[in-house]
């Protein structure tokens, strides 16, 4: 039976290997044919003329994610502090499931909400003054993504804030600090790396989000500058999803889209590594109990 369990355990290894193998095997030839520099730093994406530069999309992903972090992280962080240290129990009993539900709401629903509420609101506010064609914009995508990363940021940050030893808080309070001061000046700095981990995971979610962004970002494959946040953008993810549907199989265009996926995949791998580095040093210090020798297991092995 041990063998059966082992084989099952190897399935996830196989899956990751296959994903890497197939993405890279189909993406790399295209990158080589286009030229790695031309592909990564090309400012024009014109599939009909065989021009494939994904810099606009890379920047689009960076802008939209940056905006989401700028809006979402402060709100998420303060909410996490509230949840961990200040929330009265009856309210907590409502708020915690609400935040978990927020994590479970499908991205189409967020996207649909963005389409029907955010986009018209942005058009109403800025449309005339800035001569916008529609409300689909970087700003809409950033706000929507900020909403979507909130639960991730809150839950991870809350867990890490809670794992700060209570003695630190008590010490601060004993020295005469008010509750708020103790929370902001003692507990928050003590959970720094955990909070960073929450932010990094939020970045990962924002950069990988596809459908919701596609529905509100305007989808224009044009190089933008950060101050053009009222104009439409296209991200790496939406580039794939927009054109994969009608692309000719085996063409260079097809390869370029898969290569876009490869670039996204590499971004995500870097972010994941960052996350596990940040998340690692916290548990090791704080969850000492878990690392205590597991008697039954050692006993059985003997």
């Amino acid at each position, binding site marked *: 039976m041990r063998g059966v*369990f*082992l084989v099952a*355990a190897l*399935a*996830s*290894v196989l*899956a*990751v290997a296959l*994903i890497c193998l*197939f*993405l890279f095997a189909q993406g790399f030839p295209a990158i080589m044919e286009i030229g790695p520099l031309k592909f990564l730093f090309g400012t024009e994406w014109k599939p009909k003329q065989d021009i494939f530069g994904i810099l606009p999309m890379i920047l689009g992903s960076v802008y939209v994610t940056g905006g989401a972090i700028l809006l979402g992280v*402060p*709100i998420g962080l*303060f*909410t996490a*502090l*509230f949840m961990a*240290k*200040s929330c009265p129990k009856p*309210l907590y009993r*409502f708020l915690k*499931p*609400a*935040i*978990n539900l*927020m994590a*479970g709401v*499908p*991205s*189409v*629903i967020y*996207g*649909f909400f963005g389409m029907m509420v955010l986009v018209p609101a942005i058009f109403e506010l800025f449309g005339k003054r800035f001569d916008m064609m529609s409300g689909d914009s970087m700003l809409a995508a950033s706000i929507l993504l900020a*909403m979507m990363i909130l639960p991730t940021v809150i839950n991870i940050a809350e867990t890490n804030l809670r794992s700060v030893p209570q003695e630190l808080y008590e010490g601060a309070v004993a020295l005469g600090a*008010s*509750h*708020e*001061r103790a*929370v*902001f000046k003692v507990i928050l700095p003590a959970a720094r790396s955990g909070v960073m981990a929450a932010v990094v995971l939020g970045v*990962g979610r924002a*950069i*990988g*989000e596809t459908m919701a962004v596609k*529905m509100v970002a305007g989808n224009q494959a044009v190089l933008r500058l950060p101050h053009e946040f009222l104009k439409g953008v296209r991200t790496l*993810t939406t580039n794939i999803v927009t054109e*994969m549907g009608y692309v000719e199989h085996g063409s260079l265009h097809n390869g370029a889209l898969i290569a876009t*996926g490869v670039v*996204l*995949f590499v971004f*995500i791998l870097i*972010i*994941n590594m960052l*996350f596990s580095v940040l998340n690692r040093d916290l548990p090791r210090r704080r969850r000492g109990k878990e690392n205590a020798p*597991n*008697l*039954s*297991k050692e*006993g*059985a092995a003997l």
Partner: protein
Amino acid sequence: MIQNAMILLRRKKPMDWVRFLLMWGCGLATGAVLLYLVGFIVVKGVPHLTPSLFAVEYTTENQSLFPALVTTLLMVVLTLLIAVPFGVFTAIYLVEYAPRGSRLVRVIRMTTETLAGIPSIVFGLFGYIFFASWLGWGKSILTGCCTLAIMILPLIMRTTEESLKSIPDTYREGAFGLGAGRLRTVGRVILPSAMPGIFAGIILAVGRIVGETAALIFTIGSVIKIPENLFSQGRTLALHVLQLSSQGHNRNEAYATAVVLLIVVIGINMLSETIERRFANKLK
């Protein structure tokens, strides 16, 4: 408790009031965002929830969501059939069998973490390249299920692992002490007690399957019919909402379908949370 209240009532400096307002403001704002989101969809959608939306056939005049609902159910069952055995067995291997700190365990952990972080569009791309093209399954229910199974594997694995770990070692020692072998201990003692936790994880996975779009759009197709076999194309509820919302003239149906999807997701979440809470109480 009284002490606590006295700390809270301590004289605050202006900066403390700012911090107080930031925490309360953001906390309440987060709750308000969710309420607004859910409220908006429900208020706009419920009036359009007509019986005709649940007609067996989808036609251009009547945008019935019934075929999509059936397809979604089918996808959930098939995907779980593939993913649950792999996920649960992996967790059993990691927690109950694997030698501690072995290199293999570290590799498996690392790959699972990687898998958990991959965005769904990349899974979709992989499913399209591997299952649909390379294996030649085309856009089909089967391709979609396999793609989703890989996607939810880490979720099932991790929740199972957590609940296996939460079983006190005294259970294992007791079983060993009575002469049970490892397999019998796992099968008769550990798994039954960990079942609610595992179940809660599976339900979370169902939520992800139901809500998924990016991983399915190139793998399952978009034919709106109840699938006849594993190689038929199909369209899940989430995909249906996506398609309806992109066609300007079907907004009302889109709202109504979104309500149904939202209700399903909320139900799933509540179920998962209830089970988890019961489980946690029982182990105490």
